[in-house]
């Protein structure tokens, strides 16, 4: 992403350059927001709700969200369901395999904080944000498909607000 990241710096001093970057920024952000391909990855009850959200009545395809089986081609990851200690390294590996502008929705109580398995369980990771950076936390056990849609819209708003400058700095290390 070499060229794009240095672009905003040069455009600053060109007269009227900022209009070009902002409009270019808007187009790029708009396109990234409206075609978030999500990774087919669900562990527990939230996976069933995710399936229903992808089915006919709630249909993800309306937002341009299409499921991709391989992490390389996905840019949005639903962590749907309980993450046990045995599964944690795999979730981290999956996150790292995804290509860079990637976003994570921690779906359901278990992914946000361990949910009903917070007390007395020796095998559950207390929240997925301990291993991967999370963009949107979605409470509910399991959250309704409508609230899953709302989480996706929140991610889209977040993508639309991103600046071209922060592309030059490596965002998440």
């Amino acid at each position, binding site marked *: 992403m070499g060229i794009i990241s240095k672009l905003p710096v040069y455009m600053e001093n060109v007269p009227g350059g900022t209009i070009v970057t902002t409009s270019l920024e808007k187009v790029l952000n708009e396109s990234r927001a409206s075609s978030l391909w999500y990774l087919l990855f669900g562990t527990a009850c939230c996976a069933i709700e995710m399936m229903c959200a992808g089915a006919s009545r709630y249909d993800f395809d309306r937002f341009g969200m299409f499921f991709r089986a391989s992490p390389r081609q996905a840019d949005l990851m639903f962590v749907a369901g309980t993450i046990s200690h045995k599964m944690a390294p795999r979730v981290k590996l999956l996150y790292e395999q995804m290509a860079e502008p990637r976003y994570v929705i921690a779906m359901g109580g278990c992914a946000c904080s361990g949910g009903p398995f917070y007390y*007395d*369980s*020796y*095998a559950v990771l*207390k929240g997925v944000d301990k291993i991967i950076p999370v963009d949107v936390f979605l409470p509910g056990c399991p959250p309704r498909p409508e609230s899953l849609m709302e989480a996706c819209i929140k991610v889209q708003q977040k993508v639309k607000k991103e600046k071209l400058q922060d592309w030059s700095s490596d965002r998440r290390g």
Partner: protein
Amino acid sequence: MADHDSILKLLTERFPGKVSALELTPAQTAVSVEAASIVELFTFLVESADLKMNYLSTITGIDRTDHIEIVYFVSSLEHKHMLTIKTKVDRIGGKIESIQHIIPAANWFEREVWELYGVDFVNHPDLRRFLLPDDWDQGNPMLRDWDGRDFIRMPEVQ
């Protein structure tokens, strides 16, 4: 359809010292057996014509603070009756014969009891860890006095 008493009578005569009838609160045909003669009992249960109990529903491990109790639930598909078998094994380093070669279904049930309670099943084909993470080093979690690194107990709410 052999009923409650005839099964108990048949078993207690067949294994005089080892098997004894058991009374449990909700009435059910239950038998307690010594850990040593578990294989003998199961071979008899599977082969005997009028019992033919070869369907193992599950094996439960219970930590009774001074010993570990293992409960087998066996039923027969032809005669449609069910039997509860209970044995005692000492808490630390308990040993019991594996019945995997008689009823293959017991394979994973025994593995689970071994992993969570620490009961060693003699000549079990592959006693490997399968429920807990591979690098698990905090002993057997299901024992009642167990405590682990990030194990948080729910505070008592009065």
